């Protein structure tokens, strides 16, 4: 580790989007900033390296977004996905402050691109980064280095020394050597705890062993727990996590976007016992996207199987793994490792109950089953055109909701409702204040960027700048 030659004003813990926004802002204010990232340089950037687009308020179309997206519409979208599990003051602050984000991001090296093909539903509200989140993080790290932010990789903060709600120092470990780092203020932007399987087990039991973690293996929640142990006020459902249906062959960590699978509405889904368990045709993406992870997590062995025929193939984005393919249903079942006769029976029953409506993947059409339990309420077509395909599915955890409470200065609020003197939080570890449940595409980056900037500014101010 490089020895620190001068005292640190702002210590930033974490290496994702929120951390970089904080470090850059604090450094621009004049503070001496040290940023500690657990990952290696190649794998830096936390979950931000897997992101793709950011939701932000804007009054008019630009080269990269197709139209205006105002405060009220933004707020309504947020309110509807959270069902009210949000702090309106902080949420509106986030929305209003997001208006300047596109310019800020560009000024710090981010390059935008036109919405990707197949993302029409986000083309108006969300800005897409050229090359995605890792390219944006590369730009931010580059900007931070040019500004003089010190960055140490492969350095994990294990412990915080806090006295009377005041941060004193942090114990950081690099190459197995612990050392104490003092700073006037600290910004903690170290993510949620979704990669900590043992912690997930507290709520999910052994089922958590079968979860796939879509992002960085470094989000162990160590700093979140540390702050909570020091008396920070928790926010968000501790059991809550955003889970989506993934291809079961995905790597355990860091699979990112390419392992997600959206074949569900175009066929049937059975569990290990070869029983259907939910209406596959209930709703569109993103509502469908948000519930299937949890549905699979609740099945025996936390696994499910999506079965489709060749008619369905053109209707969804391919995952990175090719489906199991066979000329008959029993062969698909055998390839997937489930009981062939049972699957044949389920599909026969399903095919008999299909009403023969007019199939239209673009609307909630009138193709449904009759007399079948559970019903498939839209896009129900007989599974009869070979070849047949099967995908194994697992629950993929994107992020957790549990966090620490913050105020409008990004200052961490303690259990007695008083803000900690010099402790600030940004990103996933405080997102639960604003997104208490549900999912809004590109909004995690919004919260991270807005509160990253606020925390950087306020921490620098607290340190005398």
């Amino acid at each position, binding site marked *: 580790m490089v020895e620190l030659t001068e005292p640190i004003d702002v210590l930033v813990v974490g290496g994702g989007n929120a951390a970089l926004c904080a470090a850059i802002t604090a450094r621009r204010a004049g503070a001496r900033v040290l940023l500690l990232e657990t990952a290696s340089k190649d794998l830096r950037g936390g979950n931000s390296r897997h992101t793709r687009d950011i939701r932000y308020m804007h009054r008019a179309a630009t080269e990269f977004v197709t139209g205006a997206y105002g405060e009220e519409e933004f707020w309504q979208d947020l309110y509807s996905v959270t069902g009210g599990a949000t702090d309106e003051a902080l949420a509106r602050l986030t929305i209003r402050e997001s208006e300047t984000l596109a310019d800020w991001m560009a000024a710090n090296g981010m390059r935008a691109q036109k919405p990707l093909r197949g993302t029409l539903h986000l083309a108006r509200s969300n800005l897409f980064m050229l*090359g*995605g989140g*890792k390219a944006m993080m590369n730009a931010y790290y580059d900007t931070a280095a040019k500004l003089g932010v010190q960055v140490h990789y492969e350095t994990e903060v294990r412990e915080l020394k806090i006295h009377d709600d005041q941060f004193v120092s942090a114990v950081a470990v690099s190459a197995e050597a612990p050392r104490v780092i003092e700073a006037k203020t600290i910004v903690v932007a170290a993510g949620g705890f979704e990669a900590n399987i043992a912690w997930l087990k507290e709520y999910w039991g052994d089922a958590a062993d079968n979860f796939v973690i879509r992002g960085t293996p470094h989000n162990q929640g160590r700093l979140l727990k540390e702050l909570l142990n020091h008396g920070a006020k928790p926010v968000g459902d501790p059991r809550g996590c955003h889970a989506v249906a993934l291809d079961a062959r995905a790597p355990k960590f860091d699979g*990112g976007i390419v*392992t997600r699978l959206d074949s569900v509405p175009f066929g049937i889904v059975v569990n290990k016992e070869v029983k259907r368990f939910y209406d596959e045709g209930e709703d569109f993406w993103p509502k469908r996207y948000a519930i299937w992870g949890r549905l699979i997590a609740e099945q025996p062995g936390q696994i499910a199987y999506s079965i489709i025929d060749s008619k369905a193939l053109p209707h969804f984005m*391919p995952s990175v*793994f090719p489906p199991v393919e066979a000329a008959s249903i029993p062969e698909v079942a055998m390839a997937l490792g489930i009981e062939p006769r049972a699957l044949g029976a389920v599909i026969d029953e399903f095919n008999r109950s299909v009403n023969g409506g007019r199939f239209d993947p673009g609307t909630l059409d009138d193709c449904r089953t009759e007399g079948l339990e559970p019903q498939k309420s839209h896009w129900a077509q007989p599974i009869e055109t070979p070849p047949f395909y099967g995908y194994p599915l697992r629950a993929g955890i994107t992020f957790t909701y549990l966090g620490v409470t913050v105020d409008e200065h990004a200052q961490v609020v303690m259990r007695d409702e008083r803000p900690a003197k010099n402790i600030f939080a940004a990103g996933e570890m405080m997102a639960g204040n604003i997104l208490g449940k549900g999912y809004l595409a590109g909004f995690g980056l919004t919260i991270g960027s807005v509160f990253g900037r606020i925390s950087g500014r306020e921490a620098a101010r607290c340190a005398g700048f």
Partner: protein
Amino acid sequence: MTICNACRYCEGYCAVFPAMEQRRVFTKADLTYLANLCFDCRDCYYACQYAPPHEFGVNIPKLMSELRADTYREFTCPAILSGLFKRNALAVTVITVTAIVIILALVLSFQGSDVLFATHLGEATFYRVVPFVAMTAPPSLIALYGFAIFFVGAVRFWRETQGPITALVDPSALWRATQDAFGLAYLKGGGAGCNYPAENFSRSRMWYHHLVFYGFLFDFAATTVAAFYDHFLGWQAPYPYLSAPVILGTLGGVGLLIGSVGLLYLKWRSDRDPANSSMLNMDMAFLVLLFVTSLTGLLLLALRETPAMGTLLVIHLGVVAGLFITLPYGKFVHVVYRYAALVRYAVEQRQAETNS
């Protein structure tokens, strides 16, 4: 590449990704086409969340340059000479040195050393050392041979990648591809420049490549004008310093000199992880040869009224002979396949727009 197709974050960088997304499965022909659309900017490599050390280990620039090297070997003719691409630097060096030695031997045996080392002043001094027929007939033959090989390569490429014949008479597609080629549009890397030589964005590669590209064209123009003077106006080289061939040649030579040194420097500094060693070897060989060609050409111009002229002329002609003999068996061929791929892309994208 199924990973890229499921991710699509890099769509805005270059033509490869939009072209890739129009396919779900990739035949060998598709890969050949995509590889020649790739111009090795490496933006996608540094942006890729799945690049090594990620377990997926996605490295598109490396894969593409391997496939391009395959293209160059497979589509050339005769097949027996495709091995020249394999140890390209060695092959280029041997051929060039041999050419110099042969020319030197011929000059010495037919003209004698007196002529070679004398100071020549006045008109047609070059032809006193190397007679007119000897200086023009073999290069013309070599050039014709080169064009024939390029033509065969282009036809094979077009056929292999199943390009529609009608596209070849599609003026707007040809125009679009020509614009892209002459502007070196994609070297801008979606606006930021290439990740070259390493992870930071830079436009230096584009500028150096422009210098080489237009330097080469200027020299080609200089030769054409000189040939015109000679055949139709009866003016014989060497020409005055302020004549069109000399001005064009000097500009081109200087451009080549700076451009090739710049590109060599960038290659030297470049990150090897996203690179393919046989392609790098080919790049270096071609750049060195361009550099030596323009250097000897400029020296010849500067010292043409001194006793060094004869020797320099022999060396320069030898190097030029080496350059043109190896032209169809070295990095120059990227011009052919890349242009063909750009035409194919222009056609395909227009069809996609019409369909949607």
